[in-house]
Every structure is written in structure tokens, then in C-alpha cells.
């Protein structure tokens, strides 16, 4: 059970500051997801923990030990790269054994560890193949398998699903969740720009924005109580409706936020009157984009395949306890909850 702690960690490349004063405390065995838009510094943060980049300022502790100057190989971490980083000229077995040989393990021990990992990931059948003879999903498993055999204290994933197609991504996501259950003692840090992956996998989510930690919390905390307008917009799919002007001002805020699933639609009465401009029927849900007079365009989620026609006149009412209010700087406005 290895805890990971970052204290005032900063990272600059030359004069460009990529991470600013990051403070995080991850508990042992936790599954933590770093999420944020592309370029916000997620990979950099992960690489600092791995030791692939030097920390410009601040401290990194694993299990209470300062790790800033410890070699990557001695930190007790494994990393699954976005590109898998398998050695193309080695077989699957050799790929997995290469690092273990370095760790001076006996060949029986190496074989046993590889067999166990291969079994867990169902890759035993391709141990003699080269990476190029494998599909993307199989390569991904090999990369994960290679990381498992090191028996790390901390497991790092950098966007491991981004090179897979949609169906495979869902399967692999479930497998990673299962892996976390099996390796319950291993702390896992997972980087993604996809908030759905974050919500489904994480015990806790760290939302990053332009090198700053915006919020840390469980998926449902972030969903219910976003600490900023950025988090409110980033977490949840489709994204929250942000309404400015009159409606927001009426609540004493600069921005009025309401998620599509928290707007009630009625054909005869409600708060905002509007016209349906566009509908997206997904089968399980239907999303209606309604052009309202007072609140502008509002996206509304309807359960099931709601027969609603484009051009139809409707009324919308936001659920009062699901309203989010933000000031001009994007901070939440408290005490003004009541509609």
C-alpha cells in the first residue's frame, strides 16, 4: 500500500511553466484519475512521478520517502505508455522478461511472473509473437502485462485507451477496472482526457486545467459539487448548459449552470418558453436543443426515445436543487442556491 504525495510540485520547461504548485495526497491502493483537456500537463505530472522528468520545485513522496532524486527504476513504479512502447524486435515474452532480467530475478521466477500476468490478461497464446503481429488491443494487454510483472507499488497509465477503437476501449476499460480490484494493494494513477473514463474508473478524480489542480474528489462529488465552472463544464456528458445574462443575474451570479438531465420539459407550462431546434435520439435518451427566449440555447435530456418534433413549442424548467451558480471568475456562488 504505497501512498503518493506531491508537495508544491512545479515543473518548467525552460521558461515555460507547465505545472504550478501541485499539492496532492493519494492514499495507498487508490485508483486516481488525472483528467483535463489536452496540453494541461497530465502526462508531465505522471512523468514527474515516474522520474522521467526532473521536478523543478517541490517534493514527491512515495510511502513517506522523498523520491525527487531516486532513479526511475528504484521508485517501485510501472508505467503503461500511450504508444505501448513495446520493443518491436523482441517477442512478447522477451518484452516482458527484459526488465525482470535487469532486476536480477531467477529465470524460474521470471517465467512464473510472466505466466501469471499472461494468464491474467489472456495473452498466453501469443508469447512468441512480435508486437507487429498483434492487434492494438493485444499490444495494449502486453504493455499492461509487462507493467504487472514488475510488481510495482504504483501503477501509472498514460492515456492507455486512446489508440483503441470505441468498442475495444469499453472492454479494456472494464478490464482495467477488474485489474484494480485484483491488485487492490497497488496504487494506480491513470491519465486521460476523457471524462467518461475518469468517471467510470476513478476512486478519486484530479481535474487539471492549464497546469493547476482545479478540484480533487470522488466522481460524484465532482458531478454534484463542481468547485469551478471549468470542472462543471468538463465533468458530465453532454456538458452542462451555461446561461449568462438575465437568468444568471436574477440569481445574483454571472453564470447559471444546469445539466441537461436536470431540466424538465413540458408541452404546456414551465419557466422558459422555447422552440425545439434539433433533436438527437440515442435510443436510451433523446437530447433536445431548445432555443428559449429568456435563457438562449438549452440542451435537455429526455429519457427514452421521446417523440418530439423539431420546431415544436415547449416549456423548460430547471430543477431548483440542481442549479449551479458561478461568479465572473468561474468560482461557485454559495448561498444563492434557491431558485
Amino acid at each position, binding site marked *: 500500500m504505497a501512498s503518493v504525495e506531491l508537495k508544491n510540485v512545479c515543473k518548467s520547461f525552460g521558461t515555460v511553466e507547465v505545472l504550478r504548485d501541485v499539492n496532492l495526497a493519494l492514499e495507498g491502493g487508490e485508483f486516481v484519475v488525472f483528467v483535463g483537456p489536452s496540453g494541461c500537463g497530465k502526462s508531465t505530472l505522471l512523468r514527474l512521478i*515516474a*522520474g*522521467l522528468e526532473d521536478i523543478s520545485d517541490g517534493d514527491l513522496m512515495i510511502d513517506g520517502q522523498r523520491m525527487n532524486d531516486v*532513479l*526511475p*527504476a*528504484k521508485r517501485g*513504479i*510501472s*508505467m503503461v*505508455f500511450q*504508444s505501448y*512502447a513495446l*520493443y*518491436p*524486435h523482441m517477442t512478447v515474452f522477451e518484452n516482458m522478461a*527484459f*526488465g525482470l532480467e*535487469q*532486476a536480477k530475478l531467477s529465470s524460474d521466477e521470471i517465467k512464473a511472473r510472466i505466466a501469471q500476468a499472461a494468464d491474467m490478461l489472456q495473452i498466453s497464446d501469443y508469447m512468441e509473437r512480435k508486437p*507487429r503481429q498483434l492487434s492494438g488491443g493485444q499490444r495494449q494487454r502486453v504493455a499492461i502485462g509487462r507493467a504487472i510483472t*514488475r510488481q510495482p507499488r504504483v501503477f501509472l497509465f498514460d492515456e492507455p485507451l486512446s489508440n483503441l477503437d470505441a468498442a475495444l476501449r469499453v472492454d479494456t476499460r472494464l478490464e482495467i477496472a477488474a485489474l484494480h480490484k485484483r491488485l487492490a494493494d497497488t496504487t494506480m494513477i491513470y491519465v486521460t482526457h476523457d471524462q467518461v473514463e475518469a468517471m467510470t474508473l476513478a476512486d478519486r478524480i484530479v481535474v487539471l486545467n492549464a497546469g493547476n489542480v482545479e478540484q480533487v474528489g470522488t466522481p460524484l462529488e465532482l458531478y454534484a459539487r463542481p468547485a469551478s465552472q471549468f470542472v462543471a463544464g468538463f465533468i458530465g456528458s453532454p456538458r452542462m448548459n451555461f446561461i449568462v445574462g438575465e437568468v444568471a443575474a436574477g440569481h445574483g451570479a454571472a453564470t447559471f449552470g444546469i445539466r441537461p438531465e436536470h431540466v424538465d420539459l413540458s408541452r404546456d407550462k414551465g419557466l422558459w418558453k422555447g422552440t425545439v431546434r434539433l433533436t438527437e435520439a440515442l435510443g436510451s435518451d433523446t437530447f433536445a436543443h431548445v432555443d428559449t427566449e429568456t435563457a438562449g440555447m438549452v440542451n435537455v435530456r429526455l429519457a427514452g426515445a421521446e417523440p418530439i418534433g423539431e420546431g415544436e413549442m415547449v416549456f423548460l424548467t430547471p430543477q431548483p436543487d440542481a442549479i449551479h451558480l458561478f461568479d465572473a471568475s468561474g468560482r461557485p456562488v454559495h448561498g444563492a442556491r434557491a431558485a
Partner: protein
Amino acid sequence: MSAAPDISPATARASARTSRLSRERIRSAWLFLAPMLIVLAGVALYPLYRTIWFSFTDASLDLLGEARFIGWRNYLEYVDYGNGDGEWFGLLADSRWWRSVWNTVWFAIVSVSLETLFGLVIALVLHKKFPGRVWVQAAVLIPWAIPTIVSARMWAWMLHDQFGIVNDMLQRIGLIDAPVAWTASPETAMIAVIMVDVWKTTPFMALLILAGLQMVPRDMYEAARLDGVPPFRLFRRVTLPLIMPALLVAIVFRALDALRVFDIVYVMTPNTDATRTMSVYARENLFDFDRFAYGSAASTLLFFIIALITIGFIYATRMNLEGDER
């Protein structure tokens, strides 16, 4: 369990359309290739054909038009002296020729090996980031940028037995007592030629290898860092196998060049058995000794020897010319 092939008119039309399309493509491909093929035929194929033809004639330099076919006599001929005695003549029985074949092969093996080794070391250094790397890269290329004739002449002076700076320096630091005739003495002539070739061509090798090194994905090294792989093992087990295709191409390039070596030898050590290469031998016969047909035979053999060695090397290293190794 296969379904009956679909031969409905629609699919038949479709396949006729694609094949017409591909015929069209093939035709325009030939159209684009034609100028180059014609030029190649004019400047490479035709001279080759003429050389091979002359090697089967009794042509001499001023009577090229009156060359007569004489079969294999330039290559090998048994002359019977009538008294039960006889002798073999021709290129294949000429010990001077075989000496120059050996000189060439020896030169190629030693110089290309050294160039590969030094090129690899330089490429590995240049691959690292350090201040002023661009300048070092440019500086390393200077020997390659100097025309061979110029650098051969330059080195010939520097290696001169009486006035050369090399002897002077070696004597000053006490490595040798008396001046050495580097290019003139048979023991050192080949060493001198090889040294100059290595000096000149290592930058080219380094550059080709550097290009190969830059193709290796960075995360390969990062994965190895996480595994704590020490530098030498990393080089042997990861870097070297990954740059091997580029390395082999570079070696073949250089070997082809080295096997035809002419200018360095001709300028630095003219007319020495110790360094006479196949090209020098062929030129001597073609133009100096007025044995044009005989020189043509040497050129023809030179061509086939280089072709054989190259094919042998490609085959032996199972070189992947398609480049899909990764």
C-alpha cells in the same frame, strides 16, 4: 460453406471499371517512368553493354571501330607452344589482377568496418543533446564536403616523407626516429590510403547512422529507464537492433563505394602493387597500356564481383529492403 460467387451484372460492371481504372494507372505510371528509364538506359545500360562487348573483342583505344570478336581470350586462353609446353594467359591467369582484387576487398573490409565503428560512436555522441551540438555536427561533416581529389592531395602532402607534417609531428613527440615514407613504402601505403578514406567517409556514415538513431521512438528509451537498463545493455539489446536496418543500408552504400575505389588510390599512391585496386588496374590497361579490350574485361569482372559481393551481403544479413521491419 462459401456462398456462390456473386456474378450479377452490377458487380461485373464494377470489376470492369476497377480494372480499367488500374490499367489507366499502370499506363500513367509507365508514362512517368519512361524519361528516367530512357536516361538510365542511355547512361548506364548502354555503357555497360559496350564494356561487356569490348571485353570479348581485340579492341584497342585508337581502333575501337575495327574491334573483332575473339571470344573468351581476354579472360582466359591456353597458348600451346607446340613443344608439349603451354601457358595460360588472360585476366583470370594474371596474378597482378588477383592482387588488385585482393587489395580492393581488403581495402573495402577494413575501411568500411572502421568507418562503421567510428561513425556509430560519432552518431551516438551527436544524438545526445549538448550545447553547441549544431556546430559540432557541421564541423564533423567538413571532411565529407571536401572533394576526394583535394583531400587525397592534401593528405599526400601531409604524409610526405621529407616535408610532411605527419612525420614532423611524430618525430617531435618521439614516436618514430626516422621519417616514414607513408605512401611510397609498400608496408604503409595501404594503411595510409585506408586512413584517408576513413577520415573522409566517417562523417557520411555517422550521418546515416544518426538518421537511424533519430527514428528510434523516445519512449523505447523511457521504458528501458523505468526498467533500469544500464547504457551498454540498452545499446546492445535495444538501440543496435532498432538501428540495424539503417546500419546495413549504410554499410552496403559504403561497401559499393569502397569496392570501386579509384581516386584516393590514384592520387596518393599511383602505380604501387601494394594498393592497386580493380578500378586502378582497369584504367591502367584501358588507357595507359593500350590494352582496351583487356581493360574492358577487367571492368566487366569488376562489375560482377561487386554485384556478387553486394547480393551476398544482402542475403547473408537478411536485409529488409522493403523497410517494414518495424
